[in-house]
């Protein structure tokens, strides 16, 4: 605590001097501020709870000072009280992030909080996502060496942030990456491009008593140091590229895997072909017991050392994203294919302005396993086949400019969703979704956007058991109108209505004003309960009913 105060005081003095005497120290200060507020009242139909505080607010202000190779920053955060869906442990206010950094040509050092990623993040990714309420920053030291062009070596050590505290586990990591085209003389002009990398991350955590599931008189003999290794390659030739990463994790009995000793491993591959007007990619992923946290007893989304990339499309339309896929860290395997093609202008399908078509499909299965025991055992063995279906979707999106001022995007998608992904019982949901999105630039001052969506689902809402029934179930329709007035104002109105086998009428009105880097938005309406997922990492969003507002600015 004393060190933190001294550090903060020192940083404040530096920043104050920088601001008050920029002419002497040089450098510049940048930053951004965001305030999000919410008022909500009870609504038994949609399951919204009353907010006794009447007003909830999340706020943050980032300040960054840079002067040549030197930079320092801090972030103030306030959750008084946290918005619905954000963990109540965020409640409070204070300095949430601070650092000083030197970023030279061959050496970078950060002391304080830092974010870092090794490879695709499967052994280490310290990151923050304010919309998920996630901040896995490491507090410690981050050193990066670039001894010769094309070679980067990173070393990190620190403890992970969890709300206003830090996890007990100590995270250490080293990572190296070599770009062969930069380092090897004969490859400098080569069409074949290659970058190779390897990393190792280890966490140390004190011993603790965790009772065996087999015999309560026995406790687990816990590995105090758990390591994870990554090997990766990024290869390219002409229009082709291939990224592949394989990671292994040692025995890591933890709350997520039920304290079993089965080692972890994961493989991620992405093959891409792209040329003007056409691109295609095929992605494959297989995960086996790769939940890697700095505190073994921690469940939930906090204190993950690693990140397991999603291979399902991150949809943006409301009904397409109603059932997002959450990565199953204990085990999953899947494929994603993505094709984009542009029909040129003047062709039969391209018409006067060209037509874009985007096909995407992904499928995710669980692992085929045989359970051999519970806590304090190997846990399970993995067989060669496919486990249960977890998720699948196929979508076709056609975007066509109908005239100089009108553009239509039409989407059809079919989804299969297994509620087990959200740890809920139930059978597979099958959803058909159609979206029409029309953008009309009326004139230089006014633009309109119309969106219509329909979803037909075989899921059913059980009105007799609203506590345990999914309010996303049933058949839905939605309409949205958005009006942009000049460069400053926008107004939108939308309504989602469950017309069959479902419940709820979720209307929303929203007004926004933008001036330079400042944006204010005020909304009123109902929010359906569900899951917000970004990159396979999810946050539960409870139902709400009332006013929301948001103010963002940067300087």
């Amino acid at each position, binding site marked *: 605590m004393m060190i933190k105060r001294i550090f903060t005081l020192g940083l404040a003095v530096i920043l104050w001097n920088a601001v008050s005497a920029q002419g002497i120290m040089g450098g510049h200060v940048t930053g951004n501020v965001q305030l999000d507020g919410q008022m909500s009242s009870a609504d038994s139909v949609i399951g919204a709870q009353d907010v006794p505080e009447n007003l909830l607010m999340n706020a943050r202000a980032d300040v960054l000072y840079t002067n040549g190779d030197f930079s320092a920053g801090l972030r103030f955060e306030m959750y008084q009280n946290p918005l619905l869906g954000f963990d109540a442990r965020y409640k409070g206010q204070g300095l949430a992030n601070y650092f000083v950094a030197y970023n030279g040509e061959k050496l970078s050092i950060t002391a304080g909080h830092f974010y870092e990623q090794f490879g695709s993040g499967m052994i280490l990714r310290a990151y923050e996502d304010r919309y998920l309420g996630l901040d896995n920053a490491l507090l410690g030291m981050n050193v990066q060496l670039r001894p010769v062009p094309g070679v980067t070596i990173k070393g990190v050590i620190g403890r992970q942030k969890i709300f206003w505290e830090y996890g007990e586990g100590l995270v250490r990591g080293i990572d*190296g990456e070599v770009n062969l085209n930069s380092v090897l003389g004969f490859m400098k002009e080569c069409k074949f491009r290659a970058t190779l990398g390897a990393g*190792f991350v*280890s966490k140390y955590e004190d011993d603790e008593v965790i*009772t065996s599931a087999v015999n*309560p008189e*026995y406790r687990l*003999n816990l590995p105090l140091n758990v390591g994870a290794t990554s090997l990766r390659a990024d290869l390219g030739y002409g229009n082709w590229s291939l990224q592949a990463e394989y990671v292994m994790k040692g025995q890591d*009995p933890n709350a997520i895997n039920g304290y079993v000793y089965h080692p972890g491993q994961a493989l991620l591959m992405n093959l891409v072909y792209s040329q003007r007007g056409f691109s295609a990619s095929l992605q494959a992923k297989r995960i086996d017991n790769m939940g890697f946290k700095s505190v073994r007893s921690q469940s939930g989304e906090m204190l993950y050392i690693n990140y397991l990339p999603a291979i399902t499309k991150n949809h943006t339309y409301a009904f397409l994203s109603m059932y997002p896929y959450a990565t199953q860290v204990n085990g999953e395997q899947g494929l994603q294919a993505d094709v984009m093609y542009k029909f040129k202008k003047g062709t039969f399908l391209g018409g006067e302005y060209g037509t874009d078509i985007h096909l995407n499909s992904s499928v995710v299965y669980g692992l085929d396993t045989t359970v051999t025991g519970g806590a304090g055992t190997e846990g399970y063995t993995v067989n060669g086949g496919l486990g249960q279906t977890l998720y699948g979707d196929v979508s076709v999106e056609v975007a066509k400019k109908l005239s100089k001022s009108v553009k239509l995007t039409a989407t059809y998608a079919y989804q299969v969703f297994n509620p087990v992904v959200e740890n809920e019982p139930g059978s597979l949901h099958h959803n058909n979704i159609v979206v029409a999105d029309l953008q009309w630039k009326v004139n230089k001052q006014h633009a309109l956007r119309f969106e219509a969506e329909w979803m037909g689902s075989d899921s059913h809402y059980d009105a007799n058991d609203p506590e345990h029934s999914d309010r996303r179930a049933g058949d839905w329709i939605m309409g949205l109108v958005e009006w942009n007035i000049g460069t400053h104002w926008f107004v939108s109105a939308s309504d989602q209505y469950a017309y069959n086998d479902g419940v709820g009428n979720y209307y929303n009105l929203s007004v926004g004003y933008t001036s330079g880097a400042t944006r204010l938005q005020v909304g009123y309406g109902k929010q359906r309960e569900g899951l917000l997922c970004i990159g396979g990492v999810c946050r539960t969003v409870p139902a709400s009913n009332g006013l929301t507002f948001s103010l963002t600015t940067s300087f």
Partner: protein
Amino acid sequence: MKKIFLGLIGLIGLMGLISCDKIEEGEYTVYDGAKVSWMSSSASLTAVQRVYVEKYTGPRCSNCPLADATLSGIHDERVVMVSINHPTGQGTPYPGQPDMRTDGGTVWDNWFGINAIPAAYINRDRSTQYLGEMSNIIGDINQALTVEPVIALEASAYGGLSELDVLVNLEFVKEYTRPLTITVALVEDSLVYRQLLPDNSTDDNYVHNHMLRKVATSYWGADVEASGAVGEALMGTVNFSVDSDVNLENSHVVVFISDKASRKVLNCAQCKIIFEEE
């Protein structure tokens, strides 16, 4: 370039070696014993200082009957004895004879570094080891009984067919703020099996007493959740299972309280098992 790459791989490999623990299959769990549930107590105990005598023995140890003879001459009920079967060598059972070796006893044996039996310790004080006939142990036991108790300790045990409930009462007579542990063990008397005698003959009807059959708590005891203030009284309850080859009618429960760091025993108690009607 090659040097950098090899250096990097070497560094990562080195870190991997030093920063990843591997637990062998079969060692995923370790004995932790039955849990002790503590609550404050209003019981007022009579402070009696007892002495804990831990003896290491074995069926193939010809001098062990000499130690047994010495210790069997002690009739003071304040002396609590536990006999532990040495895990190897002279502790190895004869073919077809009962195996009295226990996991807990082996852990204690290893901690003392026992390499010759019979051996004994008073109150787990490693500074003095008693060997052979142990005639010199009597005086030291009597001396230890004169020490003023720090903690008053009493125990009672209630049994069914395969489970025991042990009730432990303790009260701080003097302040003791260092961490303490309490160990609960099951000891069986009147076990008859082959023993090597001093004349190198064997006696198939040798009667073995005070044999450790199970350490019910973790081997080094469960934490005592107390501040150690004078007058502080606690009641702890322990429930544990008993293997079917233990004759509970010939058994008793031994309880001792130890300094967690030094493992020296501060006081101990023993009790017969009261059988609950089925």
